[in-house]
């Protein structure tokens, strides 16, 4: 399953679908980092609004994506975690510690704009 990646200035926006398999997630992990390199992006927003389940694998992959992108010198913000998904994640013990999150795409972009101001 293809994950659409949109380029918006220095920011890449990846929109995750509901039915991503492990193979899709693995592919995405490499794909996103390569795109960050290609476009010299300063940040990535991963929009998970459509994801109805975030299990241990999906959560670990998101965390790895964020860490890899940080090593590349860019930032990652996860946006759109649904309330019931957040509840299930906490019950499972998945916290996405150390990864920036925001309510939705708009808030994610606003957060990044603030970050860019303080770093440039």
């Amino acid at each position: 399953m293809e994950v659409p990646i949109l380029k918006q200035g220095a920011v890449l926006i990846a929109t995750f679908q509901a039915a991503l398999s492990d193979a899709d997630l693995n592919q995405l992990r490499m794909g996103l980092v390569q795109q960050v390199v290609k476009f010299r992006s300063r940040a990535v927003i991963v929009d998970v609004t459509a994801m109805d389940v975030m299990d241990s694998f999906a959560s670990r992959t998101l965390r790895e994506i964020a860490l890899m992108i940080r090593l590349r010198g860019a930032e990652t913000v996860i946006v759109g975690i649904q309330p019931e998904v957040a509840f299930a994640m906490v019950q499972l013990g998945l916290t996405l510690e150390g990864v920036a999150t925001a309510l939705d795409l708009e808030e994610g972009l606003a957060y990044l704009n603030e970050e860019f101001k303080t770093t440039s």
Partner: protein
Amino acid sequence: MSAGEIRVAINSDQDIVLARQKGRVMATELGFSTGDATLIATAISELARNIISYARKGQITLKMVNGLNRQGISVIATDDGPGIPDIRQALRDGFSTSGSLGLGLPGVRRLMDEFEITSQPGRGTIVAVKKWRQ
């Protein structure tokens, strides 16, 4: 009302997605809230993932169950894999033998209302969980 019984063969990572989708549909049909259906789908995802990680293949069975004056969903994950030598250890947070996060079983236990596990080394594992409708 009878939602019947659904069996999903778990042979690949695609089947993990399929099993949790079927579980969500059944939970919704049984009248579970969106929140509870999400907990159930997440638990199914973890159980199916354990099958793939440790036994490579197995089965998830979903069915409606009747309690005294309540209805619920039963999820049974079975495999003929290597089994779990020390169940108590496997139920502790942070324990894993396959390099995964190792939160699987204790996490699933927290997501559901009832949790039962039987495992024999060399014979396989059965994890049976239930959630009751509020």
